[in-house]
């Protein structure tokens, strides 16, 4: 199976976010970058499929030069080769336009399967996978926990709300967006990193893909949300406090 995994490099989860002077983006000065966690699960799923059925796993990411670190990390975990879409204008692209860029790079590869993480830890749109599938004319399924290859295509397990699950069958080529936690992530090894040095990392300038930057929706500004309201302490005797609590839970929080 030829599997392409689209990966995003995002600011490290731990990072302190400060809004920059223009008010439209975060100050990237002290940021550390890491692979988007759901994409790590997508990569893991791809590697497991290759281990079971043979084939090739190609990782792909768009961004400036720093995304190559994340691509190398993916190669170290076992991907066969990497494609870096060298783009410096991602801030001027909306979710659809960014997906068009990625789809343009994926199309010539003609993969059997495209995997993406469910959503990114930074923007959190959760759209890239669904959009790429639509642009490439592939069937798709989202929130996938498990993937099995069958005669006819794929048999996958999908997460629904409130603890429900569902199986789906779809033909290949197809796209799946992978939910975190469906499999156990493998750790990066020294051997992996050393081997990664010899694997192919091809750079494709964004201009070569014929998808100019464009947006139908613009992120105008960023703001820090107001602090969560402090805890409401319910006082009085035990029966009084208990009654007050039940009232709050029923009518204010509406969880009872």
């Amino acid at each position, binding site marked *: 199976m030829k599997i392409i995994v689209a990966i995003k490099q995002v600011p*490290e*989860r*731990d990072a302190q976010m400060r809004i920059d002077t223009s008010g439209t983006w975060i100050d990237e000065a002290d940021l550390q970058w*890491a692979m988007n966690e759901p994409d790590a699960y997508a990569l893991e799923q791809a590697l497991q499929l290759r281990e079971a059925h043979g084939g090739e796993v190609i990782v792909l990411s768009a961004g400036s030069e720093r995304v190559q670190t994340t691509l190398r990390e993916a190669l170290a975990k076992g991907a066969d080769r990497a494609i870096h879409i060298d783009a410096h204008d991602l801030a001027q692209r909306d979710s659809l336009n960014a997906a068009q860029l990625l789809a343009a790079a994926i199309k010539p590869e003609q993969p059997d399967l495209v995997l993406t993480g469910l959503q990114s830890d930074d923007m959190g749109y959760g759209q890239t996978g669904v959009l790429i599938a639509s642009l490439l004319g592939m069937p798709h399924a989202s929130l996938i926990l498990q993937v099995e290859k069958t005669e006819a295509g794929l048999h996958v397990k999908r997460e629904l709300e409130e603890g429900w699950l569902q199986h789906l069958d779809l033909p290949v080529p197809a796209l799946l967006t992978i939910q975190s936690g469906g499999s*156990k992530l493998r*750790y*990066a*090894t*020294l051997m992996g990193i050393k081997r990664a040095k010899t694997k192919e990392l091809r750079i494709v300038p964004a201009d070569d893909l014929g998808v100019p930057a464009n947006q139908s929706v613009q992120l105008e500004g960023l703001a820090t949300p107001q602090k969560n309201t402090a805890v409401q302490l319910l006082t009085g005797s035990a029966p009084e406090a208990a009654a007050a609590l039940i009232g709050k839970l029923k009518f204010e929080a509406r969880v009872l």
Partner: protein
Amino acid sequence: MVHLFTTLAEPLPFPLAERLLFIALALASASLFLWRLLPILKTICRAKRDSDFKLFPLHRRVADFIFEVALQSRVIRQRPLPGLAHAFVFWSFCAFALVTLNHCAVGLGAGFILPNSWLGRAYSYFAAAFALACAVSIAGLFIRRFFVRPRWLGEHVSVESGFIALLIFVLMVTYLADFLVAEGTAAAHGLWWLHTLALLVFLPLLPRTKHLHLVLSPVTVFLSRGEFSKIPPLAGDEDFGLVAGVDLTRIAALQAYSCVECGRCTEHCPATNTSKALNPKEVILGLRAYLNDAGTGSSEPLLGKHNSQEAIFECTTCGACEFQCPVGVEHLPLIIGMRRGAVNTGTWEDERGAKLFLALERGSNALGLPAAERDKFIQKQNLPVFDGTQEYCLWLGCMGAYDPAGRAVVADFARVMNYLGTSYGVLRKEKCTGDPVRRLGNDLVFQQLAESNLELLAQSKVKKIVTICPHCVRTIQEDWKEFGAPPPIEHHSEFLARHMSELPTTHSGEKIVFHDPCYLGRYRNVYDEPRSIVDRAGIRVEAERSRERSFCCGAGGGHAFLGEESGDRISDTRAEQLTATGASTVAVACPFCHTMLRDALTGQGGNAPALVDIAQLAARSLPNSTQSSSS
């Protein structure tokens, strides 16, 4: 009535035929000995060189040789009675050097120690004294091994070790018996041949038994790595640790063949003592069996037939094994080396282990918690931030920054430093020192953490570090050396001991038992400083296993972050040992010991002793001190 002669009886000179027989037998024995020894020497020499081996400074090696080999210091000190017995056997062998040479010379008609000369007589009495001591010792050791059967010598009692004990006994007794027979008699002749045969049978048996240590162990002690748990750096792009036979170095092979199977390592291993699969002696013997089986050119994994991955990962790296070994076997670099081989190549699959590695790949601490929590703690505790001007950098460590018990210790230590007027600051962007991943063998993550932290220290212009965690001390001071120049670092017990006189005393009269942390005691030789703090706070009692024999709390080797253990819990076992002293308080000096023992002591129920860190003991004496909650 037995007649004791004043001189040693020698037989009449032998006829030629007998001399030729002797020569033939001697040659046969020597050839057989060499034929069995040379393959072993070849295996050892064929192994790859140790890239970090330095012969100099020589004085350390010579000192070790004198103390460990010649004076048998560790042999005696750690197991006094059997150790002394062994020492006598060893010294007799040394004393008998000339005797044996002379004995063979006599067989060829060229004896050079004249039994009647005053020198000859003196020497023979000297040798006889040792022979007596040796005979008694070897008999005692035989009884111990075959009848008393201490369990760390193993279940299987080897017939050959009994046979060899018998031969040694025969050698000594035949020598002594020579004082009971007259010169030139048939009895003297018979004794001579008995002694000779014992010698000639003994020699070829050496290479294939544990008695090979007679030949190897002096060399092993001399050529040891020298520092406690000295983990060699990886050599080049294809070195991932001890994966297969090709990775075993000469020192590793030499040590594998030197094991005397005494079981001292096993006796003190916390894993073996809690019914786990790990047995340090078997690890070394497993390597020896591997070498005999596959050799040093083999690519068959070391963790397979002769050593199991499960056992190797049960090690808490407490070092009790390496500390005890009398022949210079260094277990820790071998165990950690095999772990490296598994982890660096991705063949170790462990859910919690992977979680630990992933947490440190992406984040800054081993607990997988957001770094913002560190900042919250620093702010809430009003800890000064290091700005390059203060004297000390107070290194928080993962436990000190995130764990409730660790935080309480840091808070109390900070109060002491404030009282003393010490200038210190904490770093906001500390990352885990990498201790757990270093001991588990993940060199990729360890290198990343070490380099990142060293850069931070250099940029922040840190001159001196003090910390509450012995694991941080060890890792920063020793393990980071491979990647840069760490600033000097000390443990808070060393700091407190030095400043003790400036602190007020509050002696509570309660009984306090101090639990020696592995990484402070065996790893760093710090035993008295924390005790001096305990002495000022209460009446110190000692656990049966204390100081260099302290029993691990179970957290080391990355185990604080791994899943449930098999067998009994090491922490529960240690807690029982500490409670058995009757102390009402247990004092610790390591946040990992603190967390492990807190849960273990809570499990003991209402009457369990209280648990405090020595920093909390010191802080108790400060004015305006409220009893900080220790658990």
